[in-house]
């Protein structure tokens, strides 16, 4: 699969572990739910015994086969998602573009960045991954503008690069304004 590469992604790459992490995250909920259903079924069949107990094994096999296929399908989709994930810190803007089927792209000017933070959910901690979030003054940017699934070095690098660029841009603007004000 062709990777959506950029200078930023080369420098601060998205970890391949993200593919497995997202696959597990999606499958976990389904696995737990089906496990609960199966336990209830097994217990009730155990009590009734006889014929109904006989179908427990084929049903279990069917559930396991379904889970396995679903796991594979999720893995393939997450690999596709990982390849298409694009982020770039250009001279003037931060561009993040995601989603293989219904692409969503967000562009934020550096001067509008209000907030940069890094976090990890439970599975991230297990895999050693970090999510870098940035937002401007809108709720939608807080929800969409994030680069998730980078390892520590890339997360620190991205955070540092973003902070430095934002500060540099703001002081450049301030100096330009001061200069233009003083000549007025």
């Amino acid at each position: 699969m062709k990777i959506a590469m950029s200078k930023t992604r080369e420098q601060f790459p998205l970890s391949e572990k993200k593919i497995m992490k997202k696959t597990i995250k999606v499958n976990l909920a389904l696995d737990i739910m089906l496990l609960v259903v199966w336990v209830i079924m097994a217990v009730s069949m155990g009590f009734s015994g006889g014929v109904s107990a006989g179908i427990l094994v084929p049903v279990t096999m069917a559930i396991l086969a379904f889970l396995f296929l679903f796991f594979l399908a999720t893995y393939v989709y997450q690999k596709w998602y990982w390849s298409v994930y694009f982020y770039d810190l250009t001279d003037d803007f931060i561009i993040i573009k995601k989603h293989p089927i219904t692409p969503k792209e967000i562009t934020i000017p550096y001067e509008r960045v209000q907030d940069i933070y890094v976090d990890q959910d439970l599975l991230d901690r297990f895999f050693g991954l970090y999510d870098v979030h940035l937002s401007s003054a809108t709720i939608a940017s807080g929800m969409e503008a994030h680069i998730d699934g980078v390892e520590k070095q890339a997360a620190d690098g991205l955070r540092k690069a973003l902070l430095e660029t934002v500060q540099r841009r703001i002081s450049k603007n301030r100096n330009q304004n001061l200069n233009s004000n003083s000549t007025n």
Partner: protein
Amino acid sequence: MENNKLITEKDYPIATLWIFKAPIIIILMNVVALFFGRYFPVLVLAFPVYLIANPLIRGNFHYSLGEKFLLVKQGVISKKQRNLPYGVIQNVFLRQDLFERIFGLATLRIENAAQAGGARNVPTQQEQENVGASGNKVNIPGLKKQDAEELRNLILKKIKENPLEDSQSGL
């Protein structure tokens, strides 16, 4: 430089196909449902609404990329006009839902920090279809993908040319 020409919705119009988006989806849904022996007649009643409302909305939506402001005029029954300074644009979204992806269209959305940055309404799927300015955003759905990209680049250029006096960031 050709900067004298004012860019308006005539240069990057909402595609005619956008008018038929909901009817096409309803037809497809019914075709698929028929395979399962079901049918949604009620939805077909919505056709006239879309086929009358959408052209009117599209016809009454105007925008122009002025020197310092993005001017948006819209409204079929009640008219409204908004001026958005480029300097306060917070983010620019370019997205394609499934229909748009298949038919080569895209939606461009520009957000500013008005109305608490959109805190009151988290954007829903329905809101994606609303044309024009509402709340903290200007939404232009149904653009051809190339038009959407060019318009996005033009707006980003205007943002770059119009920095604010004071920075918005607390950093």
